[in-house]
Structure formats: C-alpha cells, structure tokens
C-alpha cells in the first residue's frame, strides 16, 4: 500500500515546461522585488548605460524612523490618506464617491503564532497603489510598549525580504509606515505606497502576492531592533479598482532643472502624478562600483528627476509638490535622456477640485 502511495506521489510532478516557466517567473519576480526594495540608505541602481536606472527617493526603513515629509496642504481639498482608508471602512463622508471607485476592501488574511495580518484595502491607479494592512493579536490584547514617534508613525518594520509584489511589474519604488488608526482597539495598521513600472499599461487585474515576516520594533536612532511578533504571513489578492486617471495634454515643452525637455505623457489620479518626459541633454553617468550610488550620480539623477510640479486648485490656491520625493528612472539616449517619474501624494486628491497642473513651467488643464 505504501508502495502504491509512493508511486502515485512520484507521478505527481510539474512538467518540464511548467518548471521552465516557473524558473523564469521566479527569477523575474526576484529581480523586480530587489528593484522595488531599495536599501534604506542608498538609491537602487540597476543596469548600465542605455538601460533604465531606477531610483526611489523614499525607502521604507527610512520612513519608518524618520516619517514622511508631508505635502503642504494649502487648501481643504486634500484629505489624509488615512482618512481615505477610514472612508472605505466607515464611509460615507464627502469624497466617498471617488474613493469608492479607486479603493476596494480586500479582506485577505494570514495568521502566524497568534498574530493575524489582514490586507484591508487597496487604492490605486494604473501604476501606483497604496495598500493598508491591519495587524492584531488573536487573543485581543494590544502590542505592548510601542510608542509613536512625534509624527505619529510607529517605529516598526517587517523583516528584510518582506514584500508586496504585483505580478507583471518590472520595478518600482515607494515607502511604508505603521500607525495606529484607532488606539481603542488592539490592531495597528501598515500602509505601503508604491509606484511601479508595469508590463502593459496597468496593474489593475493583476495578482498581488504578499510575503511578510517577523514584525520588528526599532529603537533609538533606528540602528537597533527587536522582534515584536515572530511569524510569516503570506497571502494574495486581486488588484481590483476603477481607473480614474486623467491624461493631461502632452507633447509640449517643459523645463527640468533648467534643461529643455519634452513632456511625453502625464497622468494624474487621486493618489499620484505619473510623468514621462525626454530631457534634451544626456545624463552624465560615471561608472561606479555596484551598491551605493555615488554623490555625483545621485546629483545627476536628482537633476533629471526633479520637474517642478504645482497643483492649481479651483479655489485659487496652489499646492507645491516636492517631485524629488517620488520614484523615477532615467535612460540615456544618444542626445537625450528619457525619464519617468511617479509622485504619490501624501494626501488624497479630489480631481474635481483641480483646475490644472503646472509641470516644468507649463500649465496643463484637466479636461
């Protein structure tokens, strides 16, 4: 009997074609995740000349300790990202109609060692998303001894190698932070924001794969940490929401750090501005050893990836956006440099309140 059992098990195997496909998918996914998870103190740089160099200005570990520099909110037209998620759960304040389109509750969860992590909701557009997880002990008690920093961020992080990966994405950059949305319950929240380069035009409909391990608390300056909850939390869910992105008129001239450039495409959604443009100068990239980006190369990438951006609101106010905070990539051509840039807003933007966006000195009306 055990012989027949073993023989039946022997016959259960992936085909050579399936293994080949899995190998390719695995290698590609691993490369993407490495690109999406830059080192805390360095830009992620991939490829050599003529290939896309990718930079994420804000890395998760830095954010956990230092917090996120906020966009100056000059008007009442922007609402906090936390409020957006509150709307998804508790509805229905002012901007629920839009939030309902771009945000979706998820409800996928995983439990390990008495701690449950639940992917609560996701909001996003074609290439940017923010996903919020709740983390709670199953016995109903709260995590002890975790004091928020001055900016409200909890000094927590998952073990290195933890990831949220969306199938069909090549590279990306973003940030993550922990907070306590409701101190009266025992759950804390983790929100991760990412801008990605998608194979195809959009991540909507793709599968998100979540692999998280060991929740850690950082102490002091962030150089030390200890495990608060040991475990592994794996889950997947469909990236499913309505694309409310608006394409801005492109093809015109803009200026980037004093250089002439052409805006190839511009898309704005309630959570992000996504740009592609060509600077008519070649980025002066100096060879460097792999690893940390040299100061020269970092300055060069910053110069090419810092288009000035201003939101012009219907009430007459303006909101300056710090474009350097976003994720972006550059690729040198013979006489020019192709650039892509994704800037996720710190607060939810109701596009109905926006008249136009000024990019690199050129005002572009929302249709």
């Amino acid at each position: 009997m055990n012989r027949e059992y073993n023989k039946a098990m022997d016959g259960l195997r992936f085909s050579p074609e399936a293994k080949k496909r899995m190998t390719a998918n695995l290698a590609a996914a691993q490369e993407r995740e490495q690109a999406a998870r830059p080192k805390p103190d360095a830009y992620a740089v991939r490829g050599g000349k003529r290939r896309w160099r990718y930079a994420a200005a804000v890395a998760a570990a830095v954010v956990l300790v230092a917090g996120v520099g906020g966009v100056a909110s000059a008007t009442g037209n922007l609402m906090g990202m936390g409020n957006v998620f509150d709307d998804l759960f508790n509805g229905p304040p002012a901007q629920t109609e839009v939030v309902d389109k771009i945000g979706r509750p998820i409800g996928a969860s995983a439990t390990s060692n008495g701690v449950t992590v639940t992917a609560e909701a996701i909001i996003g557009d074609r290439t940017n998303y923010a996903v919020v997880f709740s983390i709670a002990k199953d016995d109903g008690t709260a995590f002890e001894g975790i004091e928020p920093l001055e900016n409200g961020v909890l000094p927590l992080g998952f073990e290195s190698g933890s990831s949220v990966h969306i199938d069909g994405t090549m590279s990306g950059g973003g940030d993550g932070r922990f907070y306590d949305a409701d101190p009266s319950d025992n759950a804390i929240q983790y929100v991760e924001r990412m801008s990605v380069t998608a194979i195809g035009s959009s991540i909507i409909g793709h599968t998100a794969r979540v692999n998280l391990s060991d929740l850690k608390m950082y102490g002091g300056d962030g150089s030390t940490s200890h495990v608060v909850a040991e475990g592994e939390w794996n889950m997947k869910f469909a990236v499913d929401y309505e694309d409310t992105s608006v394409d801005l008129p492109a093809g015109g001239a803009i200026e980037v750090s004093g250089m002439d450039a052409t805006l190839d495409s511009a898309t704005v959604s309630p959570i992000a501005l996504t740009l592609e443009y060509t600077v008519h100068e070649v980025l002066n990239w100096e060879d460097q050893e792999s690893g940390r980006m040299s100061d020269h190369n970092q300055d060069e990438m910053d110069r090419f990836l810092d288009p000035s951006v201003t939101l012009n609101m219907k009430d007459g106010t303006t909101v300056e956006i710090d474009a350097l905070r976003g994720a972006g990539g550059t690729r040198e051509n013979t006489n020019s440099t192709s650039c892509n840039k994704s800037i996720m807003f710190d607060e939810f933007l109701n596009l109905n309140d926006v008249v136009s966006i000024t990019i690199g000195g050129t005002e572009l009306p929302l249709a």
Partner: protein
Amino acid sequence: MEARKPSEAEAERLVETYADLILRLSYTYLKSTHDAEDICQTVLLKLMNGKQRFVGPEHEKAWIVRTTANACKDALRSGFRKRTVALDEAPETEAPGEPDSDVMDTVMALPQKYREAIYLHYYEGYSVREIASLTGRSEAAVSAHLSRGRGKLRTMLEGAYGEQGI
C-alpha cells in the same frame, strides 16, 4: 551554504530541487494541484528574498517544508482558493494532473493532520521526531496521527492492501 543570490541559476536550482516537493505537499494539504504553482512561487520567492542561512541541504529542505505547510494552512484559513476564482478570468496555466490511485484517494479522504504525517513519514522519510519539529506538534501527537491514519486506511481499504501493511 551561501546566502541566496538573485539569479536565474538560483531560481532554476530551487525549482528543480523543490518544485515537486512543494506540489506534493500542497496537494496533501489542499487536495488540489490548482494552486500549487502559486504556492511554489510564494515559497521559493520568499527563500530567494530572505536572509536565511542554512547549514546544509536538509536544513534548507526543512525550511521549505515548514514554509510550504504554513502557506497551505494560510491558504485554507483565508479562503485563498475561493478568492482566486475571480482571477480565473485571466489566462491560467494548466495545473499538474492529480494522481489516479485508489490508495491516494483513500489517503486524501483522511483528516489533514493524518495526511500530513503520512506524507512526511512514508514519502519524505522523516522520523516521528523530525515531523514533530517540522510541524510544531508533539512527538506523541505525530505518532498518534500516524497510527490512527494507518488504522483508518486499513478499515477504509477493507483488507485490499492490508496484507502489505503500511
């Protein structure tokens, strides 16, 4: 062993070494091969991205077994497979064919903890103590699962295979 390096060669090594093990173990838990490729990707990607250090092949294999078991339990607990229905509209790869065997069918009719013990002991060759370590159960519990599993199988198969023992 060295830390995992991001390379296709490493992906190929992991798939060749562990994909079928993950398939068989996930089939044991989930009673289906439908999600095996996803489970496999999840587990192997976690290995490639992690900072685990292994003292030898058996240590690495034990990590694979534990992580696969956890991934399957999470899948069962979270309604993973139910949710993937919505994703079926996307092009799906064909799942590996499931075994056509009366004995396998009978084993798969046993409770999960019995299937787990039988697979790890009779197919993977782990001892009771090793299974206890892998699954976080006591040795007494694993022994009981094996013993009761064997008993149930004998009853269910009504002597057809009884003379061969298990």
